[in-house]
């Protein structure tokens, strides 16, 4: 990769003027991507034929290293598209789809989201109920998706839907590319317990998908989804996504609230440090294992479990210190941010697979403990009870 380092360096040096004056999250995100693409630095590990750099993983790692702390925050709007949708398209989609969609995604001209979870299909994603029917004019989708980040700005989605209700649940699912800008797609933001809206619900009412926009085989969507989720879990386990309150902020809070001599607070702070440091070290070990050629296993779940533990511990400490004198505040008080942090931590044991699901995975896949004897693998989907059964 001769000269790559220099090109990356130069790009980031020249970046600020290119973005100056560009306002708004989407506009700034797109401007950054465009510049990156024009510098020949977008999708370094994507084959050149699809608009990428055609380098291998080392180039990607080099870019990650040199770009640390220099990428504008607005590039986050492409994380799902480039981190999840694009690898899926490259690995599983037909050539005409890759030709059509990969390069515009790399250039930031089209934003993607993914539509997997449903109100009735969370931990048991394979229980999803969104139906896709093949018609003369293409596929018609009906159903409801949930936890869809970026749906409000995305032009396309990769989306799982049920194409055969007579098959067992894993065998009747298909992956589609769904155009979002159509009357059959309605996006509604979900307000979270923090008050913020990170996610959306997406309602599909006779949403239309071209006949040839199937990714992989019809009724063969499940293995595609599994590959994707493994990436997602690893990303969450090793650094991506939501984080507990960082130790340094906890330490400063202890000082700030004058509790640095309180032995119990000191002990709790030490435990917060231990949890966060061990999570870092495990992720360092995991990276070393991967470099040494050991494939990623369910052990990545450990990082996820540590985040839950660390999130809970940090929330408990913050709850006790930040609100020691009172639990109400004027706008601008630091308690406002601490309250957000305490509430937000609740998601750490839920998003990306609950703690319970992670522990099942460790027990079965790493430790070899037997699966639950009650299985529904062979029951036709139409005979399964799924979702929330309120009268």
């Amino acid at each position, binding site marked *: 990769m001769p000269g790559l380092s220099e090109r990356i360096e130069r790009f980031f040096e020249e970046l600020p003027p290119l973005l100056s004056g560009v306002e708004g999250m989407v506009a700034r995100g797109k401007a950054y991507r465009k510049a990156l693409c024009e510098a020949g630095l977008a999708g370094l590990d994507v084959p050149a034929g699809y608009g990428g750099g055609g380098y291998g993983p080392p180039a990607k790692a080099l870019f990650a290293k040199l770009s640390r702390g220099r990428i504008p925050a607005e590039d986050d709007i492409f994380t799902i598209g480039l981190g999840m949708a694009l690898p899926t398209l490259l690995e599983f989609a037909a050539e005409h789809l890759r030709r059509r969609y990969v390069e515009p995604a790399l250039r930031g001209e089209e934003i993607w989201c993914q539509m997997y979870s449903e109100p009735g299909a969370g*931990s048991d994603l394979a229980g999803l109920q969104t139906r896709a029917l093949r018609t003369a004019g293409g596929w018609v989708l009906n159903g409801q998706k949930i936890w869809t980040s970026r749906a409000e700005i995305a032009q396309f989605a990769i989306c799982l839907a049920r194409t055969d209700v007579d098959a067992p649940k894993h065998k009747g699912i298909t992956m589609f590319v769904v155009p979002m800008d159509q009357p059959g797609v309605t996006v509604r933001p*979900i307000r*979270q317990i923090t008050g913020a809206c990170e996610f959306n619900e997406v309602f599909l009412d006779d949403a239309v998908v071209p006949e040839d926009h199937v990714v992989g085989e019809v009724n063969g969507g499940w293995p595609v989804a599994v590959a994707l989720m493994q990436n997602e879990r690893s990303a969450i386990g090793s650094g991506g996504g939501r984080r507990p309150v960082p130790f340094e902020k906890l330490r400063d809070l202890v000082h700030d609230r004058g509790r640095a001599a309180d032995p119990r607070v000191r002990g709790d702070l030490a435990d917060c440090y231990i949890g966060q440091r061990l999570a870092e070290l495990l992720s360092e070990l995991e990276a070393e294992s991967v470099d040494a050629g050991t494939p990623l296993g369910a052990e990545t779940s450990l990082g996820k479990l540590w985040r839950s533990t660390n999130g809970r511990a940090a929330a408990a400490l913050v709850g006790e210190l930040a609100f020691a*004198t009172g639990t109400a505040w004027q706008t601008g008080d630091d308690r406002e941010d601490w309250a957000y942090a305490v509430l937000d931590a*609740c998601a750490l044991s839920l998003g990306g697979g609950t703690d319970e699901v992670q522990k099942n995975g460790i027990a079965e896949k790493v430790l070899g403990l037997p699966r639950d004897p*009650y299985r529904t693998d062979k029951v036709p989907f139409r005979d399964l009870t799924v979702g929330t*059964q309120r009268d």
Partner: protein
Amino acid sequence: MSLLITAEQRMLQDGLEQLLTRHAPPDSGAELWHQLADELGVVGLCIPEEFGGAGGTFTDLAVVMEAMGRTLYPGPYLSSAVLAVHALLLSEDVAAQGDHLPNLARGRLLGTVIAEDLCEIDGRILATSNSGRVTLSGTASSVLDGLSADLLFVVAEDGEQQSLFSVDPSTAGTTRIPLTSLDLRRDAARVTFAEAPAQRIGPPGAAAEIVPRLRQIASLAIAAEQVGGASRCLDDACEYAKVRYQFGRPIGSFQAVKHACADMYQHVRSGHVAVRHAARCLDAGSPESPSAIAMAKVYCAEAYIACAAANLQIHGGMGFTWEENCHLHYRRARASAMWAGAPDRHRQWLADQLLAR
């Protein structure tokens, strides 16, 4: 005295819970308050009959607070019917009692209390006497229902001592601004006194006796509210675990969910008996009262947090949305744990009792 709830108390609790559930927020304003005062008579629960109240016991109060906790009741019960009423009762100032208790009992007057551990005192509140006229100066934050209260009972530095005063916040010298609360169902304000005219309640120095005793009563009331909230979290979690299907079965059939619910049940039943015991100790004037109350406050605060978190976890992603009540309980659990002495402070007070010889 029995740990079993009486038939009358059960009836009161059920009736109250039904009423509060019918009037869920945002539909829970003045009308509901007057129903609580006039129809159920719970606003004057702690007030002796001679002042127009029901002359109820602390076990009765615990019964009421549990129902309010279950329904996340947002009204000024704790501030007015518990804190203000007991501040007056503890003051032994018969004149002030005669002036205010009847109106407090009928719900026509709303009071709240400004004192250490029951709100946040910024620095100190100073009382100044000038030719027989007393004024207060100072600031308090996180004052429960401070904006809606008609009368503030304020503990202030009175020379070398601490005394109890009342302030009419509508007169000049008092300014109030609303605050954002961690508990979305509990109003709080910042109250600033600048030479605000005040009336002394009870003799100078009376607050030294009143404040710790009031904190005990507040701790009991909030512990009962916490148990109520925890029991509602348990019920909601179990209900959801029965109707939510994943992997072809209700999630409540998974052992992880079962055991989480069993743990919640242990918290709720144990918290209930802790509160009930603390209330009977207070009613009986038992020497076990301080440790029974500290135990109830430690245990129920942490039990509510644990149950609110478990409820949220069992609800999965839905629990993380604004639409479900899960977060209201979690917010209240986190907030109320810190009020009237954080769990660890009560734990140390309890240890003081236990290790004394």
